[in-house]
């Protein structure tokens, strides 16, 4: 049951082979057993979870056609999931991995939480993450690092590291994540999972604690593309409360899963295959491309000449937006307030000094600097111009291909402490993922083999704007002929 797909779980629930309460209990018991080692969940609440599961069971029991409005059975009714602790969940602590929000019990639900609950999903708890989603290794969480279930001496990636570790260890069959510069795709790659960052504006940011608003996007994380499609069906949709939510007709992201790939054109950006990628990652990615050629796809070289500038441009734009977004944490309306202070100014600066961790402070300081008088044009405006060059590269590349492929991460999961003392080295972990956020494009990662020390390798698929259904099709067809996505760490059976 712990390895079942969401479709299989759905069928088991529909045929009464298992109840939502039994399913929730199965995963809660696994969390109880393995979370002390992995630290993937920050908050669980068995009572709340089981209450939601009982409601789902009532919904599943009602004869078809007799359900009250909004209580119809969906393919996700009764299936448990974990939420990244960046999503506000009413009545649950929502910490965003920060001391600042250790005592923050959200008074409202994020749009994504609301939608998945409306579909009948059962919340198992809140998942660990880098503080305010700023990190690529989960080492910046105030609640301690998450361990990679494939090797507990390695990082799970970040910032959605709790989501990735919980899925890899089968502590949950589904999870939410967010991706500002690679935070869904990189941990999915490092833990051997499938994760999708949708086109900017497809999933509402309402109730998703803001890091860099022009880049942040929520998305599904699961074992397979088929599972991600089902989750995205329930997560996506217009929401008037997010001013950048796009008003588009609803889509069934599962609709193209079974389409054959004959004739598919895969673009390979030469900049993604140069120096910088480890040999083990290269071998796994090349093998995946060979598999795609067997499925009838052809590969074509494309160029993203400005992609090398994506990391430095990102580290101007994202901190600039963060410094503005995080100004709301002032110890007045919610969050941490220092115990001692002489006046209001000191209350602000001390509450923030105590409430934020080192990486968050660094980014606020950098962001404040690049936006300050005399530096705005040189840094911020220049980075925004380069952002346009990066986006224009993709427009050109997609004239020659249907999807772009490459590695998700330059290496497999690295050891704790390997990059945490050098911020710039850590930032370079996201070298292949950041450009899609700057362009607003959808990107996904799926497992494509194992590299050094038998750690998972991720294949990245970048789609054109609103190309999610195509990407999921491309990923699903690969997962039908390979079994990397079904593997789980042996020690956690």
């Amino acid at each position, binding site marked *: 049951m712990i390895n079942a797909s969401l479709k299989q779980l759905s069928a088991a629930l529909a045929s009464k082979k298992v109840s939502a309460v039994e399913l929730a209990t199965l995963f809660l018991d696994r969390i109880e057993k393995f979370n002390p080692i992995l630290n993937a969940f920050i908050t669980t609440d068995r009572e709340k979870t089981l209450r939601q599961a009982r409601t789902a069971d009532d919904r599943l029991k009602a004869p078809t056609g007799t359900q009250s409005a909004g209580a119809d059975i969906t393919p996700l009714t009764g299936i448990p999931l974990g939420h990244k602790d960046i999503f506000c969940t009413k009545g649950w602590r929502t910490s965003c991995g920060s001391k600042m929000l250790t005592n923050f019990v959200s008074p409202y639900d994020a749009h994504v939480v609301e939608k998945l609950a409306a579909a009948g999903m059962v919340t198992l708890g809140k998942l660990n993450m880098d503080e305010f989603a700023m990190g690529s290794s989960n080492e910046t969480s105030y609640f301690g690092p998450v361990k990679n279930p494939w090797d507990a001496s390695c990082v799970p990636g970040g910032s959605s590291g709790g989501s990735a570790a919980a899925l890899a260890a089968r502590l949950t069959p589904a999870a939410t994540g967010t991706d500002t510069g690679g935070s869904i795709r990189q941990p999915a790659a490092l833990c051997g999972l499938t994760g999708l960052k949708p086109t900017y504006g497809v999933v509402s940011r309402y109730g998703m604690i803001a890091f860099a608003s022009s880049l942040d996007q929520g998305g599904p994380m699961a074992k397979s593309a088929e599972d991600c499609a089902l989750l995205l069906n329930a997560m996506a949709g217009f929401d008037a409360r997010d001013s950048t939510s796009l008003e588009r007709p609803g889509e069934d992201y599962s609709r193209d899963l079974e389409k054959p790939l004959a004739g598919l054109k895969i673009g390979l950006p030469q900049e993604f295959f140069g120096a910088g990628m480890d040999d083990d990652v290269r071998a796994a990615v090349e093998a995946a491309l060979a598999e795609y050629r067997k499925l009838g796809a052809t590969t074509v070289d494309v160029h993203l000449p400005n992609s090398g500038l994506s990391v430095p441009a990102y580290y101007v734009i994202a901190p600039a937006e963060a410094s503005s977004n995080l100004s709301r944490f*002032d110890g007045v309306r919610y969050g941490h307030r220092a115990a001692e202070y002489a006046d209001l100014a*000191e209350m602000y600066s001390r509450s923030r000094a105590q409430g934020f961790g080192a990486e968050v402070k660094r980014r606020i*300081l*950098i962001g404040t600097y690049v936006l300050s008088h005399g530096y705005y044009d040189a840094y911020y405006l*220049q980075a925004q*111009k380069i*952002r346009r*060059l990066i986006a224009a590269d993709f427009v050109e590349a997609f004239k020659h291909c249907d999807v772009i492929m490459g590695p998700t991460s330059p290496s497999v999961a690295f050891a704790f402490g390997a990059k945490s003392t050098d911020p*710039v080295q850590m930032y370079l972990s996201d070298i292949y993922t950041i450009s899609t956020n700057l362009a607003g494009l959808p990107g996904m990662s799926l497992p494509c083999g194992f590299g050094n020390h038998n750690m998972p390798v991720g294949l990245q698929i970048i789609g054109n704007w609103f190309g999610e259904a195509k990407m999921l099709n491309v990923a699903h067809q690969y997962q039908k002929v390979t079994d990397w996505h079904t593997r789980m760490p042996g020690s956690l059976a």
Partner: protein
Amino acid sequence: MSLNLEDVARIALLSRIELSADERETTRDQLNGILGFIEQLQAVDTTSIEPMAHAVDVVQRLRPDVVTEIDHRADFQAIAPETEAGLYLVPRVVE
């Protein structure tokens, strides 16, 4: 250009983040490392390139000027550090 300790103190003040003297030194070194890394952007010729502030070109939506939210004051203030009579309390700013 690289930052000195005074610059760091000024940025920390603008950011409303208290830094001790020790922290200022480490912070200076780390910020200079990051600024050195983003310096490469300066070498790019961006003449006549429009800045891109957002991934999608959408205009701000307008809505009818009507009340859409009910009063949540009690819920919101239940999680505040200090309130009194429906107000948020902060140290005195006007003598």
